[in-house]
């Protein structure tokens, strides 16, 4: 009996200790909440770690204008954000304002009903109509892309001027340009094959091989195949680039930091990523003059698209949020031209907001891509199934690893067929 009693007393003590701990925690929480109860805390989650300082400044301005709202910003690494954002958003306590990638993440979030319909909000009018269409589904504006990115190689304009090179307009001119670079011991294209190289470069490599913008939609519905010319030709182009010294040696093992370093050191003329790396390249080498130069892999008369754009970093309001009005105030604030200009110039990005004033030379020099050039939306983001996207990218890696384009395409097509319904 005594042992029973001792057992109960032990458990009782454990329970009392746990209760004491939790009650003191509750007290702590209530103290905290009472101090914070004057302002509504709005959670803002995204993946742009490099924009932290600029956002902090913008948030401080917003809070000054709206003293009843506190914004708590959480930034996640993009890979982690791709994987975990949906889970975070489910109960509505996190991510009152959140961001979404276009493509498979947008589709998954839409399917999960995480977007608030923004169609009738006044601030939608502050954005350029064309680029924000990527955030629409079923006739509703579910998310608003904030950034406009050009996913095509960045080139060293100064180097081209020194070597007397013009921007090529056809495959033959592109080959001549590359020959000159190689003759001068310069790597034509620094290709970060270990990470983002394939998923960025595939877009401009395929833009004129697969002019049908619905080609991936058709692939996912079984109407198209990766073994058809549009993709095997693209893989052949990758193979040609790899085997003829257009990419650096060991391209598949090179990560983006190493590739950027090659361009910053002027060992390489082009970086196969996108406009979002221009600011970072300038930081590595302030003397660089930069522009955008997509690979032209077809004869001049077959060139339909001159480049690739992506409207991304899509701002959205969590359907499960209880602070939707405050969230709308924040997005409205971000859509004001002067705030957007601050963000654009602070982060080196083009934006979808109207009347933004770009200050940096790079942003000004490349702004004509928004208005004057015929670009198409990044095809990769039109793949809605992540497994299909992986198969497509895997075929590029396969070719760069010496597989034949036909075999790589067939292998990838098999994976596609296993994953489409």
């Amino acid at each position: 009996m005594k042992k029973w009693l001792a057992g109960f007393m032990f458990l009782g003590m454990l329970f009392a200790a746990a209760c004491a701990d939790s009650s003191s925690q509750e007290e702590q929480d209530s103290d905290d909440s009472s101090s914070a109860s004057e302002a509504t805390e709005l959670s803002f989650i995204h993946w742009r770690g490099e924009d932290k300082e600029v956002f902090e400044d913008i948030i401080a301005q917003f809070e000054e204008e709206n003293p009843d709202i506190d914004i708590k910003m959480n930034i996640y690494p993009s890979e982690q954000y791709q994987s975990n954002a949906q889970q975070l958003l489910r109960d509505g306590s996190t991510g009152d304002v959140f961001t979404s990638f276009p493509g498979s993440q947008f589709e998954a979030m839409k399917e999960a009903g995480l977007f608030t319909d923004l169609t009738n909000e006044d601030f939608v009018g502050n954005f350029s109509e064309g680029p924000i269409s990527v955030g629409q589904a079923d006739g509703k504006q579910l998310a608003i892309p904030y950034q406009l990115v050009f996913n095509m190689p960045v080139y060293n304009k100064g180097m081209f001027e020194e070597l007397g090179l013009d921007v090529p307009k056809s495959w033959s001119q592109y080959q001549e340009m590359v020959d000159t670079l190689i003759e001068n011991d310069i790597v034509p294209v620094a290709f970060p094959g270990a990470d983002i190289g394939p998923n960025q470069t595939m877009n401009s490599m395929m833009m004129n091989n697969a002019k049908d913008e619905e080609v991936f939609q058709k692939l996912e519905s079984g109407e198209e195949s990766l073994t058809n010319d549009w993709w095997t030709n693209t893989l052949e182009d990758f193979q040609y680039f790899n085997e003829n010294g257009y990419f650096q040696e060991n391209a598949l093992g090179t990560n983006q930091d190493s590739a950027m370093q090659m361009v910053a050191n002027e060992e390489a003329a082009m970086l196969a990523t996108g406009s979002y790396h221009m600011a970072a390249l300038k930081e590595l080498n302030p003397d660089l003059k930069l522009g955008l130069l997509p690979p032209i892999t077809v004869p001049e008369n077959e060139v339909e698209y001159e480049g690739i754009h992506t409207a991304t970093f899509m701002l959205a309001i969590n359907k499960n949020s209880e602070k939707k009005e405050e969230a709308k105030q924040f997005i409205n604030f971000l859509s004001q031209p002067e705030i957007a200009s601050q963000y654009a110039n602070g982060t080196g990005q083009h934006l979808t907001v109207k009347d933004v004033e770009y200050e940096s030379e790079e942003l000004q020099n490349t702004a004509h891509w928004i208005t004057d050039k015929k670009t198409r939306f990044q095809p990769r983001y039109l793949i809605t199934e992540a497994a299909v996207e992986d198969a497509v990218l895997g075929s590029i890696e396969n070719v760069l690893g010496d597989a034949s384009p036909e075999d790589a395409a067939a292998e990838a097509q098999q994976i596609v067929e296993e994953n489409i319904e």
Partner: protein
Amino acid sequence: MKISKAIYLFFIPGLILYSIFFLFPTVSALYYSFTDWDGISADFNYVGFANYERAVTGDSIFMKSVGNNLEFMIFVAIFQTLAALIFAIILVKNTKVNYYLRALFFFPTILSSVSVAFIWAFVYDPNLGILNQLLNLLGIGFLTQNWLGNGDIAIYSLAFTQVWFHAGQMLIIFVAGLHAIPNDLYEAAKMEGASKWQLFRKITWPLLAPSATIVIAYTTIQSFQAFDLIFALTGGGPNYSTEIISTYIYTVAFRNYDFGYASGISVIFMCIIALITYIQFKVLRSNRVSY
């Protein structure tokens, strides 16, 4: 001796923790493996054994990841066990130098996987990495490789990193096992004229069998769970050549939003580990001796 019934109360906290952190997730995984749950929506359908059928007959990436995982596991189990055993035999004596060296070999174990991945990404970089630079410096530049970019060797590069990461931990287990072998046995065998190889073959190895069982079983399980290192170094690429089961489960669950199928693969994964560990225990137990 009569055991008081009160003693069973002391099982309760452990049982609760076990149920919350092991039993419940395991049963949940089993439950969801019979559904098409996407991990987000409230609704899902029961699909019977379709997820299992898909894994076994209709998913080439899953089969590839199983093959990669077995290659990785065999390489790591052999080389990690051998490296740990050799260094344990060399460093078994309790001298100051050996204490220092044991600590040095143990050091990688206390690093986080991401730190290890960061270090080895730099080592393996084909253009700037120190491994290729070292090979060139030694005049054996023909051995330089695209260590993580070449699909034929990337899995072995990762396995080597795994061995470097965990061999020190296994070394400590072997050193403890070696210290437990009575010295008298060696002295008696030496008096009988036993050679060094005979000492190892007839005394050291058989009496180390319990330690070896732990090391090999633990190494095997570790190899199957080497998610973070591989995810950080290659992400499963290039072209799925380093995709192992755990990285594939992650991709299916969190990138493809196919939790039902990911649960099915997880259950198969658990069975594979259990089966291999069981076989290892059986084989290694049969080698045990006592003098």
